[in-house]
């Protein structure tokens, strides 16, 4: 009761602060900028906020907050465009949306998918804000109740979603997740600094692979290449079916799913250290489990869009709790946000425990600015979705070069290395083969995303638990099996049992035909060989760095067993068995007029060109050649499109103050930006 006595006046102060026209003006400005940045995959809130930072110094706090929050809030909304329309996961928040959103776009229902997604986002954002208004006053002890064992269990719950997404052959799904986990361990270990599958001679590998690159490589590249080979529009027959009103109706029909997923989003969001990586998978899993007819998932089930999209905006609200109450950023953009808040006004607002005591009105302003930004952003997005959905009716050959351009630029932004492009290509190749042989790509990505948290929480929880056990058996047990952990274990077990039962009906890759043994066998052997290499490599880590080798050895060992069983089955079963799924046997890919390698060669050419003359010059050549030769466009069309592409790149990079990948030419002579740069 006492809490409410302090909350109510603060709440009305907050409303007075944010309902000024000028504040709303700044909010809308921030939202528009956020939308512009957010539609570019891989840039997201960090790039946008860095852009705003120079203006924050001494700015009126409420205005600065409105601008920044407007920007941060809409990034998870606007990156839905890329994930639904092009199958490109823009950020970790939109990975699960790709699974059903993109198939909907292929069916010509992009507008429906988009508006359902945006309505869910809006609702999720509002639920998040309402929940936080109450919860933020009592949040501290609850956040503190989530120790390392609890976080480990939530991570494992996220991993258990692999059971649902494993595909027709569960062993393949498991092995894919294992491979993802192993690829996630590449680089310098967090705990002891040992190198796994990396060497100091290739500094790029010591930092490990970035999520943006793996997400783009696993989901975007295989889809782009496949569509380009078929030489058609994304929407089959280039027809748009259901419109944006249908999406809103879909949301109304599934409002309770949206409520539940929003609550999942807020709750997981408030736990510091987990952030967005698991939320959308847990929400997707929940959507699958609560849908009676699961046969449409992966092929364009609207509930598969509504679930994750409701959770990912709610998560942003939840993520404010650790940020504001503890001063611990829940994500990269939140970290910049904290830094920027210190620059505002006279620097009196200090994010951290004092926030609730001294600045409760500001705290509430932040929560509700977030909600308002969601409303504004969603309305703008829904208004635009009908028009933007028309992109899916354009002949894909005209879109593809721009997508190659965008994903290369996005990949480069993650590490500012030329190697980023190589990594994108290699992971893209893995993605292409996973897709071709019907190994679950979502399972791979879940494995990769959760690799670091699994390893970190396991090691740390183990260390602290063994310390407690030294104090006494009871103290140890009490630490590991807290009530929260027990509840999470039950949820995990239930979801795995359900998941395994349902997995066979959920075919993320559609119905894949099977054919001869040779190609699928070679791919399985290649994965097995990599796992063996990784195991040998992990085993070479000296024993005093046990923490760095335990997880790779355990996960690698389990995955290897899966692969070996799989290989044994492959030898025994006849050709044409489901285990030999191969997209090149029959279906869209097999009937495509263009071959895989000749299509991929275009992308290789862009990368190779970049290595020699730098990105912009290579892009120039790539676009001209592609439009002339592959798309058979007229010279005038070619030149207009090329000019449009190059100027878009330069404009974006110029505003955001970003460089382009340099080549040999740039290291030999200094050239002016945009051709040169660093």
């Amino acid at each position, binding site marked *: 009761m006492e809490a409410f006595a302090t909350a109510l006046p603060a709440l009305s102060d907050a409303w007075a602060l944010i309902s000024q026209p000028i504040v709303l003006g700044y909010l809308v400005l921030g939202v528009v900028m956020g939308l512009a940045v957010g539609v570019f995959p891989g840039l997201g809130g960090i790039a946008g906020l*860095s852009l705003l930072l120079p203006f924050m110094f001494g700015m009126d706090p409420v205005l600065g907050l409105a601008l920044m929050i407007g920007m941060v809030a809409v990034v998870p909304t606007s990156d839905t465009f890329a994930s639904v329309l092009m199958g490109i996961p823009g950020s970790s928040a939109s990975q699960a949306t790709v699974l059903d959103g993109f198939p909907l776009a292929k069916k010509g229902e992009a507008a429906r998918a988009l508006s359902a997604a945006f309505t869910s986002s809006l609702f999720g954002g509002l639920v998040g804000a309402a929940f936080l208004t109450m919860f933020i006053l009592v949040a501290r002890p609850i956040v503190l109740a*989530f120790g390392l064992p609890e976080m480990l269990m939530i991570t494992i719950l996220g991993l258990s979603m692999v059971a649902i997404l494993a595909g027709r052959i569960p062993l393949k799904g498991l092995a894919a997740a294992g491979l993802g986990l192993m690829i996630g361990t590449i680089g310098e270990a967090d705990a002891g600094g040992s190198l796994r599958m990396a060497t100091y001679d290739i*500094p790029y590998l010591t930092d490990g692979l970035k999520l943006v690159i793996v997400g783009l490589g696993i989901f975007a590249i295989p889809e782009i290449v496949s569509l380009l080979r078929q030489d058609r529009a994304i929407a089959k027959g280039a027809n748009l079916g259901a419109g944006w009103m249908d999406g809103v109706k879909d949301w109304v029909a599934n409002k309770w799913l949206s409520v539940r997923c929003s609550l999942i989003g807020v709750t997981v969001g408030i736990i510091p250290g987990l952030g967005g990586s698991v939320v959308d998978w847990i929400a997707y899993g929940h959507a699958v489990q609560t849908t009676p007819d699961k046969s449409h998932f992966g092929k364009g089930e609207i509930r598969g869009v509504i679930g994750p999209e409701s959770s990912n905006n709610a998560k942003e609200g939840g993520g404010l709790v650790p940020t504001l109450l503890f001063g611990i950023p829940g994500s990269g953009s939140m*970290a910049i946000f904290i830094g920027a808040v210190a620059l505002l006004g006279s620097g009196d607002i200090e994010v951290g425990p004092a926030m609730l005591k001294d600045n409760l009105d500001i705290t509430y302003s932040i929560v509700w600015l977030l909600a308002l930004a969601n409303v504004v952003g969603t309305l703008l997005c829904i208004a635009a979705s009908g028009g933007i959905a028309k992109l899916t009716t354009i002949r894909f050959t005209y879109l593809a070069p721009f997508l190659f351009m965008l994903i290369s630029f996005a990949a480069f932004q993650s590490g500012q290395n030329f190697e980023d492009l190589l990594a994108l290509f290699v992971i893209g190749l893995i993605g292409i083969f996973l897709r071709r042989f019907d190994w679950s790509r979502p399972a791979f990505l879940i494995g990769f995303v959760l690799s670091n948290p699994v390893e970190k929480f396991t090691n740390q929880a183990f260390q602290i638990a063994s310390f407690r056990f030294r104090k006494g058996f009871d103290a140890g047990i009490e630490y590991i099996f807290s009530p929260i952990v027990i509840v999470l274990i039950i949820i995990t077990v239930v979801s795995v049992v359900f998941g395994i039962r349902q997995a066979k009906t959920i075919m993320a890759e559609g119905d894949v035909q099977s054919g001869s043994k040779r190609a699928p066998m070679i791919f399985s052997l290649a994965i097995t060989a990599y796992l063996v290499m990784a195991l040998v490599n992990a085993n070479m880590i000296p024993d005093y760095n046990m923490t760095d080798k335990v997880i790779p050895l355990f996960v690698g060992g389990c995955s290897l067993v899966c692969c070996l069983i799989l290989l044994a089955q492959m030898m025994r079963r006849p050709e044409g068995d489901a285990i030999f799924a191969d997209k090149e046997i029959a279906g869209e890919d097999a009937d495509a007029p263009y071959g895989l390698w000749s299509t991929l060669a275009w992308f290789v050419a862009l990368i190779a060109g970049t290595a020699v003359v730098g990105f912009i010059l290579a892009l120039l050549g790539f676009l001209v050649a592609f439009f002339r030769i592959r798309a058979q466009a007229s010279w005038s069309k070619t030149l207009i499109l090329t000019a449009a592409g190059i100027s878009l790149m330069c404009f974006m990079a110029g505003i955001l103050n970003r460089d382009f990948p340099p080549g040999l030419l740039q290291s030999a002579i200094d050239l002016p930006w945009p051709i040169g740069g660093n």
Partner: protein
Amino acid sequence: MTISTFTRRAVAGMIASLGLALPAAAEVDFSGKTIEWVIPFSETGGSAKWANFFAPLLSEALPGEPTVVVKFMPGAGSTKGANWFQKEQHKDGTLLFGTSGSTQFPYLLSDPRVRYEYNDWNPVMASGTGGVAYLNAEDGAKFDGSANMLQDVDFIYGSQGATRLDLVPLLAWKMLGMNVEPVFGIKGRGDGRLMFERGEATIDYQTTSGYLSGSAAMVEEGKAVPMMTWGALDAGGNVVRDPTFPDIPTFKEVCDATDGCETSGEEWDAWKAFFVAGFPVQKLAFLPAGTPQDVIDTYTKAFEAVVARGDFADISSKRVGKYSVFTGAGAQTALGTATNVPDSAKAYAVDWLKEDYGVELK
């Protein structure tokens, strides 16, 4: 190393002579130019905060008021960015580079990935911070200004890694005879504080800004007991009480009061060397090798003007802490103290890291 240094110098010389052949500008003016301040960390770290604080002030103070943008080049714990900067040569004075303790430590420890040499660069500004160690309430009751009653307690500490800034607290606790078990792999000191607040860790340390914004409240509530600061340096290079925390004893005082802890000798020298590199001279701004003196002077003047602002003490204490900012010759001296560690101290630290944590630096 010597050959590459020679080539580098030769190239630098050639470039410099080319520069001389052109008519030299009367004075440095940056009107209409953009100055890039490269930070070898991600957008989210403390160095980003530091550069973002100084960038707009520097822009106002430089002649011609150029735009100062902060660029990030993260990778390999800042060695990637520093190795890159090593290859950069003076062009037109529009490149500035920022380093922190995480760049200094691998250099001091002769990390094999380090291909940079601090002495080639031109420091124009240096600033520092302090640090406070604290205990949980239960063990804090046993603290009486010395660590004598803490020597049979097992502590847990959330750590970012023994070769990072955490080297300073870990070595200090070891010298006090305390048994502190680090749990490695956390991402920032904020995570360490959270671990402490959850009761999973029982000892913690924060840099000044982290302590003031997060831990001071715990101390007020009686959930934490401050143990010691790392101290600050006076003009003579002696460790004295931290001006931000005049009431908390320094590690030096606690060490003096504790049985078996010495404030002289090889162990102490090693600790002090790494303390100086990690705290009082934590962050430095550099101009690249080969920068002509007039450009260095321009920057020095600009940073002096920033520090001389009437409101500087006020705005900086809230954003980067109440510590000295060194400019010009002061920055050069600061760099000297931060990067010149006696070989014996270096060897001691390397041996200790290997013995206690299995870290092999090769």
